[in-house]
């Protein structure tokens, strides 16, 4: 944390103190002050609109029935049919949608909680222990970061079919536990959150390395653990190719694949269009909430991952 967030917060304070008089100087010195303020904020608003408008469309479209969707202009409200749409989503195939949501929660939840623990343990070991072959092992992890996931999906399917694991939840759950980038991040976090002295003190007090990890290291790395888990949760929730390839049974699908199946139906049967739109909105809400609530964590996570 000290390497990532500290410089951030340290810089923020002098900046606030320092810039207050500075722009005033600018404005008196140059006439462009108002214009540039106008341009900068105008461009920022334009950029944000591009980001927000499609999501707003999803929100508005999910309040319309099929007739209004085609009949009214895009951002005008038709007859408010959001609850009818949600009811239709819930009723389709005997509540299959909620089964898909449940599956997504299961895959992403286990992937996030267990997968991140595995990554955090490995990252902690890479930072805190000395052992032979450490550098080359870490090199493997970095190679793992660089291999595109989609390139391993098909071989993984072929392997899973050899051992008869395709079309089971394990075919999706086991691969998502592997997050080499999480190990890399965890190493960065271990280096900055867990002081060697604390571990030394614990060792002197007679705590074994495993005990000191679970009672000291892990609690100290909790912000890092949450960050890695958040990104892993989102990654698994968004994963499309792996479950698409591995699963045939509709009851095992995560919501991403499920909705894409509905979208396939929607071409010949337009009555599926509101289901797809409303289902999409419902499947986005958990992630939006997670990101809004855990802002502090994803921001520091992005920095640790990329700027360091």
């Amino acid at each position: 944390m000290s390497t990532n967030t500290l410089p951030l917060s340290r810089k923020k304070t002098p900046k606030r103190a320092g810039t207050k008089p500075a722009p005033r100087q600018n404005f008196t010195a140059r006439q462009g002050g108002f214009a540039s303020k106008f341009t900068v904020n105008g461009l920022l608003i334009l950029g944000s609109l591009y980001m927000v408008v499609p999501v707003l469309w999803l929100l508005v479209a999910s309040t319309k029935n099929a007739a209004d969707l085609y009949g009214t202009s895009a951002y005008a409200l038709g007859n408010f049919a959001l609850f009818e749409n949600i009811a239709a989503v819930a009723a389709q195939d005997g509540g299959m949608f909620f089964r898909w949501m449940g599956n997504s929660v299961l895959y992403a939840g286990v992937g996030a909680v267990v997968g991140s623990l595995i990554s955090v343990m490995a990252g902690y070991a890479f930072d805190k222990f000395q052992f032979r072959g450490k550098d080359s092992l870490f090199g493997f992890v970095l190679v793992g970061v660089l291999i595109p996931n989609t390139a391993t999906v098909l071989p993984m399917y072929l392997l899973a079919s050899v051992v008869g694991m395709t079309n089971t939840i394990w075919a999706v759950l086991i691969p998502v536990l592997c997050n080499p980038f999480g190990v890399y991040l965890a190493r960065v976090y271990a280096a900055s959150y867990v002081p060697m002295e604390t571990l030394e003190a614990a060792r002197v007090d007679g705590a074994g390395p495993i005990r000191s990890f679970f009672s000291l290291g892990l609690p100290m790395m909790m912000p890092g653990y949450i960050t890695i888990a958040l990104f892993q949760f989102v990654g698994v929730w968004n994963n499309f190719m792996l479950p698409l390839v591995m699963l045939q049974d509709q009851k095992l699908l995560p919501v991403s694949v499920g909705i894409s199946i509905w979208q396939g139906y929607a071409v010949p049967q337009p009555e599926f269009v509101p289901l797809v739109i409303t289902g999409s909105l419902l499947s986005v809400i958990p992630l939006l909430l997670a990101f809004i609530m855990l802002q502090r964590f994803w921001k520091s996570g992005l920095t640790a991952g990329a700027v360091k």
Partner: protein
Amino acid sequence: MASQALTIVPRSKRSAVSGTGGRTAALFLVPFFGVFAIAMVAPVIYAIVLSFYAQQKSGLGFGEAKTAFVGLENYLQVLQSESFVSGIARLGLYCLIYIPCMVGGAVIFALLLDATVARARKLFQLLVFLPHAVPGVIAALIWAYLYTPGISPLVQALQGGGIQINFLDAHMVLPAIANIGVWEWTGYNVIILFTALQAVPREILEAARVDGAGEIRTALSIKFPLILPALSVIMLFTIIGTLQLFTEPSIIAKATPSITSTWVPNMWAYDAAFIRHNLNQAAAASIIIAGLAAILSLVVTRFSSRMNKS
């Protein structure tokens, strides 16, 4: 006694690190390398093995198919396949559109956000990050509707302005998909670059201001060079990311015939495995994609380390 204590202290300190060493470290590392072996190493090795074999039917195609070692035959077939090669070319074209727009957009937005006159920074950060919280499948679905004439407010608005564009026809569909990528990833990278900008020492900016450099001048000749390291990491992950292209075209393909089942290399491999049932070719194609990722990341890393040095 004293000298003994001196030699003991460093040794005991070392032992805090190394004495717990090997075996304990293994306890912490085994779970990860276990899943790593299952989810990455084994599939890659198995794919390499498979890629050297082929199912061959004897004589007239009757009878049992036999597995035969064919060496690099599969690789040659994949690389000679017109659809695979044009998929790679299409991916290259996609990169040419997507990377400058996305990275350029992220740099500009981050610089604007860091300008002294910018307001409501927190709100803007949250808003630009919003698309990243939308799953790729859903992003593609939203845009698929935004591109579909009849529902799309975008097409309606353009028609109102007298412009007829079909985003889903053969010429427009590639930029249209690049736009989905730009929409999903720009905000994510804005946050990274903005944080990097915040770490730029304020004294340097202050000095530039005293020397009479304006906002734009400062942004271009001081701030921008200082965020190059962050930018090179972004480039690396962006390039690996583009090789993964699969979700968006697969979803858009359901809305338009312009996207074939072998449109990009990943779709080609999927098609080989599940439509043409040629697992050996699919394996070879996967290995080619992974190899391409390796080469490209090497090139980007080399290039950016040279840039950072100079």
